[in-house]
């Protein structure tokens, strides 16, 4: 066994030690997220293919220019969606802090940061609900597109179909993330993790939550910016 001790980095698969050095659940969460990344990737690439095969496309600054409680006809492109983006980034930061508090067996820190993360998730979902409702009132829905292309030509329903499908699928992920975080919060408050002696489950919930934030980075860019 002396050889393994002298050259530990080259003998990962030689037996006697864990080649990944993480527990089973975390490896499986990573593989689940990888498959989920392919699902979202397929959606976004399909959207890109259709967009590349069409002559015109609606201008996002024309479609997403509204803001809650603003007077009718106000022109504020990118403002509302940038608030949504920052909400999700900040909730991701509080999730990292919850995971770190878990490493230090700091129950109070875990509970506090999980509550902030859940509030961020609910705030994001509320923003999205408002936006969907607003667009629906303007006549946009699956199979119905009231907007013209940027160059003034007639637009197809591809734009609204992809927008509602992809942001809907992402919103459903945010919703599941909030549910998972609420379960983590209940388990932390009821001392389930203290009894186990570790907070490793928070780490897996954290991975899922960061993935949701990661997908929003792509959705935000593909639909609102370019």
């Amino acid at each position: 066994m002396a050889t393994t001790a002298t050259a530990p980095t080259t003998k990962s698969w030689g037996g006697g030690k864990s080649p990944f050095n993480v527990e089973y659940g975390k490896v499986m969460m990573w593989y689940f997220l990888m498959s989920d990344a392919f699902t979202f990737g397929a959606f976004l690439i399909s959207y890109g293919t259709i967009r590349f095969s069409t002559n015109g496309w609606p201008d996002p600054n024309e479609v997403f220019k509204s803001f809650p409680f603003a007077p009718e006809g106000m022109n504020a492109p990118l403002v509302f969606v940038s608030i949504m983006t920052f909400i999700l980034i900040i909730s991701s930061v509080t999730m990292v802090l919850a995971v770190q508090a878990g490493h230090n067996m700091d129950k109070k820190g875990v509970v506090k940061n999980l509550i902030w993360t859940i509030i961020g998730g609910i705030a994001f979902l509320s923003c999205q609900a408002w936006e969907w409702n607003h667009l629906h009132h303007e006549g946009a829905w699956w199979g119905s597109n009231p907007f013209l292309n940027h160059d003034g030509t007639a637009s197809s329903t591809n734009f609204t179909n992809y927008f509602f499908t992809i942001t809907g699928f992402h919103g459903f992920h945010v919703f599941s993330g909030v549910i998972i975080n609420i379960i983590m919060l209940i388990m932390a408050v009821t001392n389930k993790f203290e009894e186990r002696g570790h907070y490793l489950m928070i780490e897996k919930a954290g991975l899922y939550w960061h993935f949701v934030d990661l997908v929003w980075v792509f959705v935000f860019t593909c639909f609102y910016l370019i």
Partner: protein
Amino acid sequence: MSHTAEHNEHAGGGTKEVIKITVYLTVLTIIELLIGFWMIDIPLTSVGLRMGLKGAIVILMMAKAFYIVAYFMHLKHEMKNLIMTIVVPLALFIWFIIAFLYDGNSFKNLRNTYDPYFKEQSTKKVEKKEHGAAGKHEEGKVEEKAAH
């Protein structure tokens, strides 16, 4: 408890690192938004500049994705074996994106060349419809409904 000890060992820079990455992500997002606001005033005819700015936004997006995965999801501090089993399959995306977008673009060019109806319909300017009249292409239909 051995798990906890192992994780602390390669936990990275702690709270200081989290603050640093938060600042990076915020700054990158603000730059993206500034480019977005700039693009509103650039006419559609300057195709090259618009494409260049969109490319810049995509590069900033990839940087944000890297910081989230590497630091928030902690992948940078994992074993190289684990990093490889995740990153190598995702490299398929490089081919997916190039192949599918190229195919979409080629389909557009073929239709513009060989389908005059497609070309005519997609380059004809139309009047903006009034609020709520979505999907109703014939004016007669709207009047008929109003008469009822």
